[in-house]
C-alpha cells in the first residue's frame, strides 16, 4: 500500500513539475519578440495612428486607424509632439497646427508622460513597509536620502539608519502632527515615490484607519500635514505619486471600485478619467500630454485602447484594436491541442510568483486521446492489463501529455498496479 502511495506521490509531483516547466520550455523555443503596439493620437490628421511589429525582423507598419500606411518619416511627422527633436532637425519647427503655433520651448513645457502599471499596485508587489521621508525643501540642487526611515504603523516611527534605533523625538513630533491634523492611527497605507532622481519631493499620502487621506511632507525638518478631501463615495485603493516639473498633477488615485482619477498637485482635486474597459489589475496605462491633447493609452496583452481628451480631460475620441502580438500562432493552437492545461509560474502583472492554472478546454481532447492510446500501448508493452491500471489511465485522461510522460518516467509495475 505504501509503495503504491509512494508511486502516486511521485506521479503527482512529476505531473506538476512537467506542467510548470514544459510550457516554459515551449515559450523559450517559440516565443517571439512582438512588443505592444504603439498607439498615438495625431494632432495633424486628428486620427489615431500606430506603429506595430507584424512579423519577424523589422517588419514594422506605420498606419492610421483607417488603414492608411505611411513611411517612418511621414509617420513621425503625424505625431510631431512626440518626435519634436526630429522635427527640429528636419526644420519643421515652429509647428503650425490650425491656428496654433508651437516652438520647441512651448512643446517641451507641455510634454509629460504618466504611467500606471499593474505592478505599481501595492497588492501586486511585495514591499517592506519602511519609507524614507525626504526633505521637501532641500535648499540645494539635488534631493538626498535622510538618515532615518519612516515606519507607518500604530504611530509614525522614525528609525535612525546609522544606529538602527528608534528616534523618539522625530517619532513624537511627526505622530503628534498627524494626530493634530485629525489622523486616526494606525496607518492603513503609505503612498509615495522613493527616489532622489525626481523633479522635487511631494512627500507621502497616508491613509488612516478610517480611510481618510492625509498628505505628509518634511519641510525644513518639520512635519507638514494636510488632510486631503476625498469626495463622497470614493474609497482609496492605491495612489501612485509622480512628481513632475510641470506641477499640474501629483499622480493617480485608484478607487476601490476601479475608477481612476488624476490628482492635481496644488489642491489635490480629483479628475475622473473616463476609460472604458480599463482594468488596473491587468492593464498598463500611459497618459501622454502635449500642448493640445491628453491621450490615455491602455492595454493588456491582447487589446490596446486609446482615449484622446482635451486639456480639461473631456474625451474627444476613442479607438481600440487587437494587437499583432495577440494573434494566435499555429504553435499555440497545436500546444492547446497537445496539453489540457498549463501551470503558469510568472504573472506578468505581479512581482509575486504564482501557480495559476490555465485550462485549454475541449481543444485538448485530441492530445488527451493520443496520450491515452500511447498509455495503453505502454501498458501492453509492460504486460499490464488496462483493467489493472485503471487509475493510471484515469490520470492520463485528466492530465494528457503530462500524465503520459509521468507514466513513462514512473511506469506501472507488477504488484503496484492500480
Amino acid at each position, binding site marked *: 500500500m505504501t509503495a503504491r502511495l509512494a508511486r502516486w*506521490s*511521485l506521479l503527482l*509531483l512529476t505531473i506538476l513539475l512537467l506542467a510548470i*516547466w514544459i510550457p516554459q520550455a515551449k515559450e523559450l523555443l517559440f516565443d517571439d519578440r512582438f512588443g505592444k503596439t504603439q498607439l498615438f493620437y495625431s494632432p495633424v490628421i486628428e486620427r489615431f495612428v500606430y506603429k506595430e511589429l507584424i512579423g519577424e525582423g523589422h517588419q514594422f507598419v506605420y498606419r492610421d486607424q483607417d488603414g492608411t500606411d505611411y513611411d517612418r518619416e511621414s509617420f513621425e511627422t503625424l505625431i510631431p509632439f512626440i518626435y519634436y527633436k526630429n522635427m527640429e532637425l528636419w526644420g519643421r519647427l515652429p509647428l503650425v497646427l490650425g491656428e496654433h503655433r508651437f516652438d520647441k520651448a512651448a512643446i517641451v513645457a507641455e510634454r509629460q508622460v504618466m504611467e500606471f502599471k499593474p505592478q505599481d499596485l501595492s497588492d501586486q508587489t511585495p514591499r517592506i513597509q519602511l519609507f524614507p521621508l525626504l526633505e521637501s525643501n532641500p535648499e540645494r540642487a539635488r534631493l538626498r536620502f*535622510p538618515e532615518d526611515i519612516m515606519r507607518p504603523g500604530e504611530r509614525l516611527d522614525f528609525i535612525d539608519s546609522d544606529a538602527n534605533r528608534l528616534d523618539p523625538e522625530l517619532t513624537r513630533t511627526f505622530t503628534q502632527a498627524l494626530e493634530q491634523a485629525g489622523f486616526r492611527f494606525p496607518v492603513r497605507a503609505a503612498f509615495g515615490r522613493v527616489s532622489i532622481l525626481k523633479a522635487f519631493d511631494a512627500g507621502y499620502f497616508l491613509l488612516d484607519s478610517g480611510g481618510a487621506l492625509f498628505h505628509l511632507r518634511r519641510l525644513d525638518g518639520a512635519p507638514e500635514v494636510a488632510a486631503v478631501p476625498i469626495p463622497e463615495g470614493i474609497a482609496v485603493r492605491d495612489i501612485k505619486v509622480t512628481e513632475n516639473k510641470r506641477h499640474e498633477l501629483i499622480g493617480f488615485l485608484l478607487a476601490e471600485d476601479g475608477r481612476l482619477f488624476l490628482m492635481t498637485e496644488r489642491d489635490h482635486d480629483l479628475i475622473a478619467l473616463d476609460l472604458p474597459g480599463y482594468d488596473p489589475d491587468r492593464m498598463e496605462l500611459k497618459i501622454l500630454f502635449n500642448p493640445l491633447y491628453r491621450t490615455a493609452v491602455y492595454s493588456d496583452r491582447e487589446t490596446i485602447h486609446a482615449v484622446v481628451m482635451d486639456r480639461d480631460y473631456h474625451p474627444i475620441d476613442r479607438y481600440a484594436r487587437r494587437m499583432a502580438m495577440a494573434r494566435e500562432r499555429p504553435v499555440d493552437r497545436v500546444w492547446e491541442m497537445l496539453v489540457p492545461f498549463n501551470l503558469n509560474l510568472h504573472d506578468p502583472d505581479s512581482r*509575486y510568483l504564482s501557480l495559476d492554472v490555465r485550462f485549454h478546454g475541449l481543444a485538448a481532447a485530441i492530445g488527451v486521446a493520443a496520450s491515452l492510446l500511447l498509455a495503453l500501448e505502454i501498458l501492453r508493452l509492460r504486460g499490464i492489463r488496462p483493467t489493472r491500471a485503471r487509475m493510471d489511465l484515469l490520470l492520463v485522461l485528466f492530465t494528457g501529455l503530462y500524465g503520459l510522460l509521468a507514466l513513462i518516467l*514512473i511506469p506501472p509495475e507488477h504488484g503496484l498496479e492500480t
Partner: protein
Amino acid sequence: MLGAIILKEWLKIRWVWGAALLVHLGMLVYLLLAMRHQFQVEHSEMIWYWAFELRRLLYTQIQYLPALTGAVIAAAQFGPEMLGGRFRLSLHLPVRGDLLVWCWVGFGALMGGLLALLDGAGLYWIISIWFPREAAESALLTALPWLLGGWVAYFGATLALLEPSRARRPVYAGLTLAFLALLDQGHGYQEYDRIMPQLTGLALLLLPAVILPAHRYRHRG
C-alpha cells in the same frame, strides 16, 4: 529498536553533519562580516534604499547552502548503504520496511532541519543588527524557498541513491533539479510569499515517495 536505528544513522552522518555545521557557521560569519563591511564603506541610508526599494538581496551567500547540505547528508546516509548490498541487510531488520525508511529519512531530514533552523535564526539575527525588524522578517520569508531547497535536495538525492535501477536514477535527479529550479526563480524579496504553501505541499510529496525505490530494491528480481 528505534534508538538503535537512530544511533546507526547518527554514526553514519556525524562527521558530515559536523562538517556541514562548521560550513554553515562559517557562511553565517562570512555574511556577518560582509554586511559589516558593506555598512562601513557605504552610507546606511543608501544600503537601506538598495534593500527596500531596489530589492537587492544582501544575503545570497547562503542561498544554495541548504540544498547542498541536503544532498550531502543524503549521500552520507545512503551512499555507503548502497555499496556491497548493505542496504538489503538493513531491510531485513524486524521492522516494517516503509517505517524503517521513514525513520532513516526522518532522522536525516531532522538533522538537515536543524541546520536550516540555524541558517534562519542566523540570518534573522544578522539582518536585524543593521536593519529594522521588518527587513529581518522579510529576509526570513525570502529565504524560505532556499531552506525548502534543502528538504527537496535531501529527499531527491535519497530517491536517486536508493533506486536500484540505473535508468531511473537520472529521472529522480532530473525531477529534483526541476524542483530546485522552481525554488530559484525569484529576483527580489518575498516573491514566493503567495506560493510557499503550495510548494511546501509539493515538497511533502517526497516523503511518501522515498518508499518506492526502497520497495523496488527489496523486490527487485
